[in-house]
């Protein structure tokens, strides 16, 4: 079966710095893949390349067998690649409901619908359904700029998933979410991934979350994949222990 996502020898340099130096990976349908790695390992760069925000200096990205290298996000969004952000990217002067309405109107409907009125009852009702499923009903009328960070984060993810993407990229879904709410959030998301048969790639720093929710883990270090496999196997890998897990509890020194 064709993998949903395939990266072939992806390289990206910013000036003289190599952010990723030859990443190869292949992700099959319905996999929930966690990406771990220290700051600067190239995790977000990888997400930026896969979602089309950056064009790799070398290498190819294939989405369900088709070459999408360098295709801009606005095209990929319509083809079924959605993405959430480490820092929520929202329309802060609008209400949560309006944010969701805009997401639904733009992602789920053809360009010709752009000239239809925005304040549409049907669109509003559909936005409310999505907001409700994420437990955001109470915030629907709040202007996003006044919402707490955790709620914004959830809204950001909700907007990414509202059109049932084939491939979902999440950049640190639980950062900025309080530790007691993290598991509830991930539990809810996991249920949705399963129900909508989504393939997910998520970056995460909380190893407990990765262990529990990822069906597979990819460890990045210095722009390279150093381990790829089941969570337990990757966490047991001596290199991962030394380079990624070690630095997190502070026992290892800085390179």
């Amino acid at each position, binding site marked *: 079966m064709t993998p949903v996502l395939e990266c072939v020898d992806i390289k990206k340099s910013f000036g003289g710095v190599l952010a990723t130096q030859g990443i190869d990976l292949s992700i099959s349908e319905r996999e929930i893949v966690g990406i771990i790695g220290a700051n600067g390992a190239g995790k977000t760069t990888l997400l930026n390349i896969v*979602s089309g925000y950056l064009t790799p200096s070398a290498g190819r990205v294939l989405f369900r067998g088709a070459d999408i290298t360098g295709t801009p996000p606005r095209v990929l969004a319509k083809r079924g690649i959605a993405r959430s952000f480490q820092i929520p990217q929202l329309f802060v002067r609008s209400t949560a409901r309006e944010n969701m*309405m805009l997401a639904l109107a733009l992602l789920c409907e053809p360009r010709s619908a752009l000239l239809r009125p925005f304040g549409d009852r049907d669109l509003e009702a559909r936005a409310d359904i999505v907001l409700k499923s994420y437990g955001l009903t109470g915030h629907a009328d709040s202007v996003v700029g006044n919402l707490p960070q955790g709620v914004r984060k959830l809204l950001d993810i909700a*907007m990414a998933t509202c059109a049932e993407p084939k491939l979902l990229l999440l950049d640190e879904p639980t950062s900025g979410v309080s530790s007691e709410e993290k598991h509830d959030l991930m539990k809810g998301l996991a249920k949705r991934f399963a129900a909508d048969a989504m393939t997910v790639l998520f970056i995460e720093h909380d190893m407990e979350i990765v262990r529990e929710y990822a069906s597979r883990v990819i460890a990045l270090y210095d722009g390279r994949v150093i381990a790829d496999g089941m969570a337990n196997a990757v966490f047991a890998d001596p290199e991962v222990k030394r380079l990624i897990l070690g630095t997190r509890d502070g026992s290892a020194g800085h390179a």
Partner: protein
Amino acid sequence: MTLRKPDTTIVVLLLLAIGASIGAWWIPGWIRFISQMAISAALASLGAMVLLRAGLLSFGQGLFYFAGAYTAALSYKYLGLNEAVLLILFSIAISGGVAAAIGFFISNYRGIFFAMLTLAISMLVYGIAVKVSLFGGSDGLNIGLISILGFRYRGPDLQLAMFLICIWTAGLMAMVAHLFLRSRLGKVIEAIEDNEVRLEYLGTSVRSSIHAAYVLAGALGGAGGVLAALSARHVDPGFAYWTTAGDFVFIVILSGQASVLSPFFGAFALEVLRTFAAANFPDAWQMVLGTIMLLIVLFVPKGLGHIFIALGARWKARGRTVVPAAMNEETARP
């Protein structure tokens, strides 16, 4: 089936246009003329407002004001076109076309770069218009006798007919702008100022959206220009000069950008203000305008039009008790 609630803005626009049409017979000629000039400026300002919704400050609306006015004057002089309605349609189309062409380039820019480039293009055209004899040089061009819907009116009848044409052209253009702003694309335009990255990730081209808004702004500027040209029967390169565009920006700041009605209110307010200031402080009227601008920016930053919104909200909330708000405050206390 329930009947859809009519759009308030469209209803107000229609009532204003009908009211002005009926009242036209009793309004003195000089007030009608001032109104026509205010309406023309309001249309160009409306274009600036559309762009400001996307966070783009245009100092180049004068360019389209110029394009609309000169399309009419040149068509009259060289093509022998003398039907007002045709001139208006033609001018709006040409201005929109000019905006469509410039839009390919200008839609890449934001912030100060956008403001300065719109200004630069406009001044470039001003510089050319002053020199080129085809455009009548710095004297500009006159527009002679025109017919309105085939009728060749003379004297007061022509003035009255022209007033009605202005009112209804402006009314229709304002409705088009309103339909645009309340559409999903209109919401995209607003969202551009907030977050371009998210819009791209929602499958929308920010550039194309700005391009569309720019074409609408161009068409509105052109509509203002042609109405000003047909009202004054004269055009000059000053239409493209930066102070003309500055007036349009002033109007938007004065009125705010809450609704398509705002620039009309702003344009009339500016006209009244200017008349009042010039009559009472003949040597210092610009200082009066400047002071008022300063006070508005300091105390009513959303513009005078916002006062109507606040009044409207209070009107809607009438009858409701104030107790819930007070209770909310109580419960919110830690």
